[in-house]
């Protein structure tokens, strides 16, 4: 052990191991930063599960519960509470804001506590019961958004209510991190007075139950088979499955990204260890002469690397801990919970990743040392035979396994592993091809002397240079994607809306309000918005066969089928829709026109008969056309349209989209005051809010991508350093034969400039290609080429490679030619 420590100290002193340690630390930091953060988020979900549910059992429905259920809860001796959840405009004076309204019975919550404060920022205290009748509690964001402090009054629908407190903690909400509409909590008894719950309103109805475990379980067994479509239950075990799912997905994505950084670091470790081994071959031969056995050598070097690994992993864990604090800070506005301190398991995960890296990437070249023949002291050409590629295969397989495990899904893991491997190969192949093409003798001949020598060198080291270029390109692609491409996509989306596109959605116009609303717009000299009828219907059968969410494997399909659809009826095809297949509706027939994408997702075809229920009544109609929609036109769009004869007479509300020029907000206020049940959504504001959420998420993810870039730079550096000895000798020989320092540096500069430019261009190409793929296939946008991307990529590549080159090449030129040549003998 002492000898291993001594060897570690000496090799560290000689600068042999710093890059290896750094690569390992970066890999571990990358993985642990995500793991620490995920651990804290996970703890919030697990911590006091009752608190998160607000009860022992929660029943959720998209339509009102049968009163018998509440009676059943009481009869079984359970405590019961209820709540409604919906979105509505809240008004205070001239200001208005979209609010997430929760109307609760006084005994809510049955588990956990609400906390309130007398003012924003003031110390809070637990509340014994929910808001009193006639009063509301607002969260801080809503207080400042409405300018409505405690004591002031706010209007919700037709009701005016007093702001009684600032809501600082709502247990259920802490599990639903990404809330866009700030909370307004009210007493359930005040809801009728608001007149907000009307036909077409989207409301979630909650029933809460709490009691002894056996009572709760018995009730759970009773209610499960009686749950209708659009209803589900949640208990302590299932927790919040939907929230958990989205968090799991986000964690998996982050974890995968972090692991990719670790893989790159593994490559740096492999390259660095190879160089270490090559520089220690002679030393090992001497030690064999001095009496060291093979086993002792393996033991000593293995121990040395283990000690280094342990220290580097520890440093990585600390770095990861600091980084996850930064991630938490970047997401602090989104996260409405106080995150607890992380546990120790992520640190263990970090060490595990470090161990796999060491065993998979450092051990194979290290083992070469044990086979160093002692006779190498006298015959330099004696070197142990090794086939590196098989031994690296083990490391690669181990990492592939970890990536698949992290993905949590064989298919996704396979895509990630395959995609990454493909990206590496494509970048490497392209880099190698470009370097070879650029340096063909016919091309090189056309340049001056200095340039020519640099280009010749580029060709000579083509394979090694291609590795450097590919690794830098990989890291740069990630960063370019997150900066330029992200902005370009958002800009393209913004631009895709025509300048006169609607910027407000109007929801909830009742049939008896139609004329009045239209008259209102006329009186304000605003072009009458087109009011579309909307009927909420539930799909019950396809071609006579009952359908349920269980029929679909894909999450989005399940969600679509479980919820109610918003159907509409009209005689003319809307101007912003196009028939993709079939023919438009026959007004006299029971027909449907369906959006193309949803038909594909749910497996519907032309001619299929769909059966629906609307408030107890059912009807069937056949699909006669598929439509293509322009979602970015900001006009109202419907997945399913029927002729009037199919849906007229069913419970209907009307929706519209219209444009209000800046300065026209007073008109909206007046509209809301005249028709308090209407919800007016400010599209621009909603988009801005969504943009902020995306920005914060991307900032958090960027941290992880920075690790990837850092690891890529390390690969670059180790690859450069691996050729350092050779470059030094070449430079010495050049100078012996008359080249000036300027000529030598000039040649090397040409080499690195070319490599940096190629890496940058490849990265721009990668980011542009992925951007186009996302734009066309996912967002259905036109993404024009970005000049900034194509300038930034090569510039960044040149800058980064020059920095790396400067760091590794200083030594090349400092030593005198004689000293260099003597050392290399």
């Amino acid at each position, binding site marked *: 052990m002492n000898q291993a420590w001594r060897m570690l100290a000496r090799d560290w002193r000689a600068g042999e191991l710093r890059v290896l340690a750094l690569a390992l630390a970066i890999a571990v930091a990358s993985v642990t930063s995500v793991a620490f953060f995920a651990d804290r988020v996970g703890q919030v979900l697990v911590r006091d599960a009752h608190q998160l549910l607000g009860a022992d059992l929660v029943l959720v429905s998209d339509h009102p519960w049968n009163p018998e259920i509440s009676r059943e809860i009481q009869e079984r001796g359970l405590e019961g509470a209820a709540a409604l959840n919906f979105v509505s405009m809240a008004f205070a004076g001239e200001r208005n804001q979209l609010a997430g309204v929760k109307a609760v019975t006084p005994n809510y919550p049955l588990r956990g506590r609400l906390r309130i404060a007398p003012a924003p920022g003031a110390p809070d205290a637990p509340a014994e019961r929910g808001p009193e009748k006639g009063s509301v509690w607002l969260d801080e964001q809503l207080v400042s958004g409405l300018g409505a402090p405690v004591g002031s009054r706010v209007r919700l629908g037709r009701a005016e209510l007093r702001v009684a407190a600032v809501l600082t903690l709502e247990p259920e909400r802490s599990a639903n991190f990404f809330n866009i509409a700030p909370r307004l909590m009210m007493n359930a008894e005040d809801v009728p007075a608001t007149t907000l719950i009307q036909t077409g309103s989207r409301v979630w109805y909650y029933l809460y139950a709490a009691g002894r475990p056996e009572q709760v379980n018995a009730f759970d067994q009773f209610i499960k088979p009686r749950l209708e479509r659009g209803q589900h239950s949640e208990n302590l075990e299932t927790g919040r499955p939907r929230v958990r799912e989205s968090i799991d997905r986000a964690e998996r994505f982050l974890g995968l990204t972090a692991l990719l950084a670790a893989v790159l670091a593994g490559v740096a470790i492999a390259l660095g260890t190879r160089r270490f081994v090559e520089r220690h071959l002679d030393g090992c031969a001497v030690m064999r002469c*001095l009496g060291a056995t093979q086993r002792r050598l393996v033991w000593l070097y293995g121990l040395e690397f283990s000690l280094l690994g342990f220290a580097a992993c520890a440093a990585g864990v600390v770095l990861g801990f600091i980084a996850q604090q930064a991630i938490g800070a970047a997401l602090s506005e989104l996260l409405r919970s106080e995150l607890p301190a992380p546990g120790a398991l992520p640190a263990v995960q970090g060490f595990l990743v470090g161990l796999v890296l060491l065993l998979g990437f450092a051990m194979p070249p290290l083992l070469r040392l044990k086979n160093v023949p002692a006779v190498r002291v006298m015959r330099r050409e004696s070197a142990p035979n090794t086939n590196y590629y098989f031994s690296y295969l083990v490391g690669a397989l181990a990492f592939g396994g970890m990536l698949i495990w992290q993905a949590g899904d064989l298919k996704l893991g396979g895509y990630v592993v395959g995609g990454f491997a493909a990206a590496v190969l494509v970048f490497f192949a392209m880099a190698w091809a470009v370097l070879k093409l650029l340096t063909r003798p016919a091309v090189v001949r056309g340049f001056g002397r200095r340039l020519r020598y640099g280009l010749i060198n580029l060709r000579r080291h083509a394979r090694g240079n291609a590795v450097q270029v590919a690794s830098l390109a990989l890291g740069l692609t990630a960063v370019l994607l997150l900066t330029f491409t992200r902005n370009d996509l958002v800009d393209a989306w913004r631009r895709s809306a025509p300048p006169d596109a609607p910027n407000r959605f109007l929801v909830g116009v009742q049939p008896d309000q139609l004329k009045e609303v239209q008259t209102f717009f006329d009186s304000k000299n605003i072009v009458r918005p087109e009011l579309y009828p909307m009927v909420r219907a539930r799909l019950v059968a396809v071609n006579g066969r009952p359908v349920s969410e269980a029929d679909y494997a894909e999450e989005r399909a399940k969600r679509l089928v479980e919820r109610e659809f918003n159907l509409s009826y009209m005689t003319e095809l809307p101007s912003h829709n196009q028939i993709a297949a079939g023919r438009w509706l026959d007004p006299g027939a029971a027909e449907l026109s369906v959006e193309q994408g949803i038909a594909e997702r749910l497996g519907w075809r032309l001619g299929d008969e769909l059966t629906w229920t609307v408030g107890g009544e059912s009807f069937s109609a056949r699909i006669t056309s598929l439509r293509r929609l322009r979602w970015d036109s900001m006009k109202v769009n419907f997945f399913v349209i029927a002729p009037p004869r199919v849906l007229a007479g069913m419970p209907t509300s009307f929706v519209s989209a219209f444009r209000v020029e800046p300065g026209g907000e007073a008109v909206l206020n007046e509209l809301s005051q005249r028709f308090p049940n209407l919800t007016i959504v400010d599209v621009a504001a909603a988009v801005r809010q969504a943009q902020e959420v995306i920005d914060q998420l991307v900032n958090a993810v960027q941290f992880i991508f920075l690790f990837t870039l850092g690891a890529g730079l390390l690969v670059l550096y180790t690859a450069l350093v691996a050729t350092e000895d050779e470059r030094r000798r070449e430079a010495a020989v050049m100078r012996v034969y008359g080249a000036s320092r300027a000529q030598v540096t000039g040649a090397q500069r040409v080499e690195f400039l070319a490599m940096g430019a190629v890496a940058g261009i490849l990265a721009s190409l990668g980011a542009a290609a992925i951007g186009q793929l996302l734009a066309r296939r996912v967002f259905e946008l036109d993404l024009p080429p970005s000049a900034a991307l194509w300038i930034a990529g090569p510039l960044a590549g040149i800058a980064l490679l020059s920095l790396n080159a400067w760091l590794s090449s200083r030594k090349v030129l400092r030593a005198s030619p004689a000293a260099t040549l003597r050392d290399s003998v």
Partner: protein
Amino acid sequence: MHINNHVLSARGIGKTVKSGESDLVILREIDLAVTPGEAVAVVGASGSGKSTLLAILAGLDTPSAGSVSIEGSELFSLDEDERAELRGRSVGFVFQSFQLLPALTALENVMLPFELSGQNDAEAQAREMLVRVGLGERLQHYPKHLSGGEQQRVALARAFVVRPKLLFADEPTGSLDAESGAAVIRLLFEMNREYGTTLVLVTHDEQLASKCARVLRLAAGRIVS
């Protein structure tokens, strides 16, 4: 020859290597024996096989034929690790290219044999030996800061610090100028006498060879005198 009295003996040593399509015979039917304390020089022109012979005698390389024993142990009936252990106990080396570890100071280079055998009191002995070779002021210097002659003196210190029974030297002055070479030779023989080591020396330098008690001349793979 009585094997029991010899610290080093070799019988029927031959070495053949493949060179392209044909076999190249480097050594043929070499017999030799060295008594304790003797200084033997092996001389020959470049390519005569002297370094190959030295490597085989030291157990660093395996012969195609024949056997070697050091202190009565048949070298090639031992495995590589057992040979390494034997070297650690009984054999010292001095090389033409010094073979110092560049990341270690002069002191640490001399301490290395002790550290490898697990001894913890290496420093004092190493220090003493470096003073002995005249490098008491250069203990903390790295090989790159030492001249060729100084590096070879560090190598001598490293070789002698374990008081080996047998010392192999392969062209110890081959990389040195005349003056440094002479100084190194003087030290080598002084320490050899002081510690009673048996010396087997390979050289093309006739003057160096003349300082040894016996000179074996190699030509075309055979000992000719």
